[in-house]
């Protein structure tokens, strides 16, 4: 059963229902609307991003649905990002953050997790200056403020 999704810039995408329903938002919309051929509007997602999201959902269409467990610590789950996901996430920064936003809006938890893990991996191991360079951020701290924060961080670190 195909479902039609319309992006922000009015591009229509037709996908199978089970693929579309990897998005909990879309799944709920379908349930509310019932059997209908009218396309589902997604005004928050541009066509370029929606294309990528659909690609992800199609590849993962057979994955078991993750059971929501409040005590589930994501760090305890496998830390390895699958090879396919890693290649999928190898996009420019702007697209990466757009995908994360879209996954958040569409409520696709696995995609959101992978996106956030990818950003975390970018941040890991970098000094503040290196992080600024990566994300194009201006340093707006005075030297005194920096010194203050460094002192605070010192004793508060993990045992």
């Amino acid at each position: 059963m195909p479902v039609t999704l319309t992006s922000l810039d009015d591009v229509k995408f037709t996908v199978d229902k089970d693929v579309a329903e990897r998005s909990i938002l879309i799944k709920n919309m379908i349930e509310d609307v019932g059997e209908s051929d009218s396309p589902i509007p997604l005004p928050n997602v541009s066509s370029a991003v929606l294309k990528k999201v659909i690609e992800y959902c199609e590849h993962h269409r057979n994955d078991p649905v993750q059971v929501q467990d409040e005590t589930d610590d994501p760090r305890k789950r496998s830390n390895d990002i699958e090879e396919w996901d890693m290649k999928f996430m190898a996009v420019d920064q702007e697209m990466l953050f757009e995908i994360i936003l879209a996954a958040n809006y569409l409520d696709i938890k696995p995609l959101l997790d992978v996106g956030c893990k990818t950003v975390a991996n970018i941040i890991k191991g970098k000094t503040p200056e290196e992080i600024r360079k990566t994300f194009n951020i201006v340093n707006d701290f005075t030297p005194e403020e920096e010194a203050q924060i460094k002192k605070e961080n010192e004793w508060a670190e993990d045992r």
Partner: protein
Amino acid sequence: MATSGTTHALDLPEICALIAIHLTKAELGECILVSHQWANTFRPLFWRTMLVPRHKVALCRDEDLARHGHHVRILAAGRIQQSSPFDQASVCSLQHLEVSTCGSNDEPDNGLGCLPAIVHRNKTSLSELHWMCFGWDMKLNKPYRIWPEIFLGLERLETLMLSKWTISIDDFLTILKACPSLNTLTFEATEDLEDLSPLPSNSNVSNSNSNKIRRGSKMIDVSAQDRPPLFQHQGVHTVHYIGHAMPGYLRHLPKVQTLHLQNLTHGNLSTIPDEIRQYCPEIASLHILTLCSNPSRFLALVDSIHTLRSFQGRVPSEAMQDFLEMVLAKHAESIETLCLTEAESDGLRFNVWRFLENCPRLTDFQIPYKLEGSLLEASSTVAVPTGFTSSYFSSPRFLRRRPYEPTKPWVCQDLSKLWLRIKDMDIQLMETIALDLCVDRLIPLTEKVPKMASGGGSSSSYQYQQQHQTQGRVQSVGSLVGHHAHHRHGYGHGHGGARAHSPLERLIVEKLSGLKKLSKINIGSGWYDLPEMKD
């Protein structure tokens, strides 16, 4: 970070929180130093969890906590004494608190220091408390007595762990009444003050209408109207006893579903079975990680459970046979998890296949014993020579092996985790079975060839590995199979793997491949993750 009016992902706190989960504290510290906006975003996440080792408490700076203490949600504050850097107005939103205090009979505050102030300040948000006491009360000759008033007002408290305390029944009731949201209780090296257990009876069935209770060294008659009405907490569903059990308190916890017993001194189960039988009908999960000094008390404990869903832990070897029979007889319909830890039991002669035939809800089955792979029965054809009694000839040496034949199909269709170690099975064969199961999963139904007869299956599995090179994640398994098959081809037919499979071994493979939900298996050569069945 936002570009021209649109929202950037890093502007959303929930997304930053998800990113921060994967970052260490040190990395979060670096993020704070990037810019003011990043500092505002990541600082709450940095300060959220404070695990301060005891030797570092002295380094905690009051002024930093005054500024950022309101971000702290999870705090391990070390030892609390007269003062603590965490005793300040900003630290008022704690959800999780771990502390220790030094007991004292001499101090006016009983050694509690500023802890009551801290707890009181956080009483609306506190949901988990771990409280340990250092010291030994010389007067009581027990750990120090707890101060239950500290719990007043802790309406959100759900999880409580108390270590090295003495708790009287009144103390316990004060705590239960003060904390209606409690659901998990852990008592470590914690003792009750009075012994309120009913008189121990000689029979296995507890004498529940005992009218005598013991106070100190005397027996006191308590008639029905003198006994206060029994207060029962309706929320607690999990109880851990570590080091020391306090069975008498179970009567106030009728909703307990899970009971953990760990490292009990002298392996003493005391009157736990009797309390459960009378007061705790809902217990369905047992974790027993303790030696048991008395196997019959162990069996009484299992017997006291009304409907057993999960058993994990250690079974005394003398009780093993009876334990397994009891579970099969009483709980075959309900048992979901049966995981027994390592123990010496070579003499075990139990047909473990009966679990797979009779327990439809079984999902996790781990018995790491060396089991006989087949039934043993007394041989009726051995003639008893004159002068010897026949019992001598029923001893294990004279029992003849009869191959296992399935009396019923396996009903445990939801089985997902299985660990059996079968005696006398060739190691290579164990590996083959596991790998053949993996291959079986990779092949779509339409492409399956007839099951291997004897050793010939290895070549077909190698071919299928070639066809399925493109399968991303499962490629590693496929290549492992291919390598294995190739390896065995190299050795030719003389090697063990090429010998004909015994009926038992063929049967195991056939039965195991029928378990569609099986995802982890260990039949003696290590754990294998099985890929999902292809439709």
